[in-house]
């Protein structure tokens, strides 16, 4: 078997019909019932999408004035985990910070957390404003719509309650489409889904199953963990970070039901690592991808060669990088969440050596 075959890095993308079921808009008087609060991403008109993994749905919260009723911007909050815990009447160990998203309108940081880790765990949405004030966003009278993420059809309808669960790991909104990456607790395969927003105007979305042949002729299934939309030469792409390391691009336009698309692996970012979150930003006239990782710190990756980087075809020794080069930002350590704050800053939640989580704005590297 040739090295070329062994280490040709590519992604095979197949599409099939998907059962994402939009629900009609629900009146403001009721407010949504969330069973859990996971990843967040902002859409148009102050809509905040929140993934409810336990409830197997995505809720589009029409936050309206709640987005901008505080001081604009986001002030640093040292010990954000402890302060959130104090406000919610519990200990920081009972708080799990699930995601962070910055409002494009107010530049306030919205944070989804779980209060409690046991049977009484409660999802909470918080907002940190430019004065450092932390508010719980009451969802009691928020207008919302939902899109359900039902389990795949069961060949055995008589089975007891199906313990299969999907866990949404990332979402991104682009040009009227919400893209959703997730994991299953039964099948080790990727589900990258899309649904048009507003939910109420679509009948179904499309599902994208992705495999990647990351390490050779051995085409294996692997989940996308995080991704970001990015235009390459005027063409909208998704840049996806796979669970076992490669960075893959594929054009959104190619993701049509029934099509099979070969994605291109443009960087090998090292093993023993899992991408956590990524954003795209501009500095000195150039675009960069900023990506946080479990064990390889925060990477700054120039995007200028994304368009013409050939798919990686050579071995990558010793878990080192290949393809697009990147720079590890030494100053940024322990970063667990990040989002773009403004043209010059990224807001991060970073855990220090003492285990304390700090919300802080950092100059874009």
């Amino acid at each position, binding site marked *: 078997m040739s090295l070329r075959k062994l280490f040709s890095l590519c992604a095979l993308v197949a599409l099939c019909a998907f059962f994402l079921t939009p629900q009609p808009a629900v009146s403001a008087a009721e407010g949504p019932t969330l069973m859990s609060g996971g990843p967040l991403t902002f859409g148009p008109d102050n809509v905040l999408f929140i993934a409810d993994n336990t409830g197997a749905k995505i809720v589009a919260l029409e936050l309206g004035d709640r987005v901008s009723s505080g001081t604009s911007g986001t002030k640093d909050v040292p010990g954000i985990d402890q302060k959130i815990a104090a406000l919610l009447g*519990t200990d920081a160990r009972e708080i*799990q910070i699930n995601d962070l998203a910055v409002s494009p309108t107010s530049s306030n940081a919205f944070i989804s957390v779980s209060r409690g880790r046991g049977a009484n765990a409660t999802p909470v949405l918080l907002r940190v404003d430019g004065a450092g004030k932390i508010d719980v966003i009451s969802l009691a009278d928020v207008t919302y719509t939902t899109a359900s993420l039902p389990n795949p059809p069961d*060949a055995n309808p*008589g089975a007891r309650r199906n313990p299969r669960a999907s866990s949404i790991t990332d979402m991104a909104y682009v040009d009227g489409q919400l893209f959703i990456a997730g*994991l299953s607790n039964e*099948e080790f395969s990727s589900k990258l889904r899309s649904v048009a927003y507003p939910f109420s105007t679509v009948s179904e979305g499309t599902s994208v199953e992705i495999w990647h042949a990351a390490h050779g002729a051995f085409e294996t299934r692997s989940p996308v963990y995080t991704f970001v939309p990015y235009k390459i030469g005027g063409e909208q792409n998704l840049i996806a970070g796979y669970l076992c390391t490669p960075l893959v691009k594929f054009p959104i336009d190619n993701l049509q039901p029934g099509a099979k698309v070969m994605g291109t692996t443009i960087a090998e970012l090292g093993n023993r690592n899992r991408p956590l979150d990524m954003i795209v930003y501009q500095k000195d006239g150039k675009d960069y991808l900023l990506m946080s990782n479990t064990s390889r710190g925060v990477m700054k990756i120039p995007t200028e060669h994304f368009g013409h980087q050939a798919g990686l075809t050579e071995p990558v020794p010793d*878990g080192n990088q290949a393809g697009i080069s990147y720079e590890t930002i030494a100053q940024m350590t322990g970063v667990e969440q990040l989002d773009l704050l403004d043209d010059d800053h990224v807001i991060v939640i970073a855990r220090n050596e003492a285990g304390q989580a700090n919300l802080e704005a950092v100059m874009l590297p």
Partner: protein
Amino acid sequence: MRPSSSGVTRACTRPRHTGPRTLPFPLGPLPALLSALLVVTAACSGLGGPDTGAPAVEIRIQTPADGPDGASIEVAGLTAEDLAALRAGGLSDDEWAELLRVTVVPEDRDDREDQADGLEMPPVLGSYAIGDDGVLRFNPMFPFDPGRPYSVRFDPTHLPGRESAAIDPMVAVVALPKPDVEPTTVVDRIFPSGDRLPENQLKLYLHFSAPMSNVDGLEYLSLRDARGRAVEEPFLPLGTEFWDRDHLRYTVFFDPGRVKQGLELNERLGRPLLEGETYTLVVDPTWPDAEGNPLQAPFEKRFTVGPADTTPLDTATWRLRVPASGSTQRLVVSIPEPLDHALMRRAIGVEDEAGRYVNGEVEIGNWETRWSLTPSQPWAAGAYSLVASSILEDLAGNKIGTAFEIDVFAQVDDTTARERFTIPFEIR
């Protein structure tokens, strides 16, 4: 410090510069204390009372009859004048919190101040109300945690009209009782249930007898070789994301970076399981269940490892034992190798000639090599199909007609073509 015999603590009348006073007991043996700590009165060193103009108040945590979730903190004993002033005052949230400030007592700290690591901690969020019974109540936005101590600071100088009074704040620590519960949760089963796994085993399922907490299960799992040495990083570190919705089942994926061929992690460290070796999966009993209790007992599963399985599933090798019409006997499907337990339960079914699912009780046995269906209605004579969804996998992730790892150059066009596979059979 003399709490009155009636349980009412009078506000202190010492000059305010002495600062707040705290409880007269240490918090060291707190857990033992908490079970009896439903009502706690504040302590102060001077007696107040009507003669000093200070209110004689009692601070307590009150649990309604319908359970601790509705518990509130009450301040009783305010004078009619103070109550009227509060009702008329229109206090802001910040002003209420200055009058009655409830904070979490940090765990593992003796200072009991509302500070931690030099950070000033905000008060617990909630609402304030004065009842018809003349009691000031603080209702937290989220229920108080049983067993967790909360510091309550009542500062009478923030009562409307008392701003210039020389009255010390009262500080009490209150807590809801936390019932002592004997641990009862156990690991029920682990799948695969067999004691021989392929070298490229993809995942394990741990079933618990009661809901577990939402924590990273990998902190409580270790894999040990025959000499008792821990296998280095065998599992995929994905935190809390592999629980089922009831938190009864936890999925553990072996790190695919070590399972798949050609990956650096696989080539450098090798597969986590090696053919011919014996391993023990050890479950740490400190793993907390949904009630915060540890497991009743440790759990271990010992298994040996056979060669890697890279062969796709082939339904032609499955054997069916077909029952007679008119009976409710089981249809039994025997499979020559163990399948993934979860997918086996979900991805195999039976259809009649018209494509209708046959309802009944599915059982999985013989170490996941046998699938059976006992119909809820007697079998009618006719043609049926055993249906297997394309998601079905064996222990190593191989699917029907498709291995977990395939040669993309040879088979790229055929990887997702079929969504289901059928085996026809006839009931006579």
